[in-house]
């Protein structure tokens, strides 16, 4: 049966393992460099954070905000949100009120939608690598951190897909009405 606690717990193994792997991947993704740039007489190697700081310092603060949200806020918010959902489904699914279940279901739908925007930095590195190829004076090359970051994004998306939000409703009564228009 769906509503036995052991069953709920078993259904959480896969998404929890994927989310844990994603969290671990975020460590090298943020510590290792993602981009090697040689341009305008300057050579620099950037991590996700230093890339954001550089955008901010060159006066491109709207871009800095966009990349900050896509590369740092969304992955961390997503993993914390997923952990919260796992915890709610595992521990107190039976004690939740319907409005709490509704809020958690909305949180899940939101996490599902925002995840893709984390790919921004990966696409940015891919595009810059493809265009800035002037040999020694100006070139951009990807560094290994971007692979770790892409892996973290994929694992987070897979973790979200693996979580079944119906677990939040496993012990709820079913309403019997036509859909509201």
């Amino acid at each position, binding site marked *: 049966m769906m509503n036995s606690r052991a069953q709920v717990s078993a259904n959480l193994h896969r998404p929890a393992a994927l989310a844990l792997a994603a969290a671990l991947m975020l460590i090298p993704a943020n510590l290792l460099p993602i981009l090697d740039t040689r341009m305008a007489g300057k050579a620099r190697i950037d991590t996700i954070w230093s890339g954001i700081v550089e955008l901010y310092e060159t006066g491109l603060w709207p871009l800095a905000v966009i990349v900050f949200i896509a590369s740092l806020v969304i992955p961390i918010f997503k993993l914390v949100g997923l952990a919260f959902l796992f915890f709610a489904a595992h521990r107190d699914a039976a004690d939740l009120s*319907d409005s709490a279940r509704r809020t958690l279901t909305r949180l899940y739908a939101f996490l599902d939608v925002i995840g893709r*925007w984390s790919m921004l930095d990966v696409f940015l590195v891919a595009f810059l*690598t493809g265009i800035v190829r002037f040999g020694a004076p100006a070139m951009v090359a990807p560094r290994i951190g971007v692979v770790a970051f892409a892996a973290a994004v994929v694992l987070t998306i897979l973790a979200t897909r693996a979580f079944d939000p119906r677990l939040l409703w496993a012990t709820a009564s079913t309403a019997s009405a036509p859909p509201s228009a």
Partner: protein
Amino acid sequence: MPLSSDNMLTCRLCGQDHQAVPLSAGETARCVRCGARLETEPRGHRCTAVAFALAGLAFAAPAAWVPFITVEKLGNVRTGNFIDGVIQLNAHDMPFLAAWVLICGGIAPLLLLGSLLISRRHPLPAKRLGDALVHWSMPEVYVLAVFVALTRLGSIVEVETNAGFWSYCAMSVALLLAWRAFRLQPPPEPSA
């Protein structure tokens, strides 16, 4: 939303079953229990999704082959597009990352457009394929990445935007509109 043979709509998020009712154009059906959107009856003709999908595929060809941007540096001119990025990632010993970018920015959107193109004749397979692909199809995120790259490069070197990028943007918008216009039609009533 899964639509079973007896016209029951099951909420994807909470599993609540609903009896499907006809909706008028622009009307949205929400789940009685969790409030999630079950279906929105699209405004416009039943072929709108197919038309947008066709438009998207028409833009995909120039998006693939025409340069996105031209960069000038010390008298050297370079052009680049989506495929160049993929090739260069592969050349830097990152084949999996190259494949991943190719899938999310190119293959998944194309397959999604293809599935929407057949959605009129084969709605059920189109819906299944679409639901599987839609999470991995991210052309709008790629568009934002190119905007960021353009602005960043523009502060250092001379950058010119080319038709390839605008075609890619158009493909991305057409895909979004086609997916929005697509709705799994209930099985047609047998007519007398």
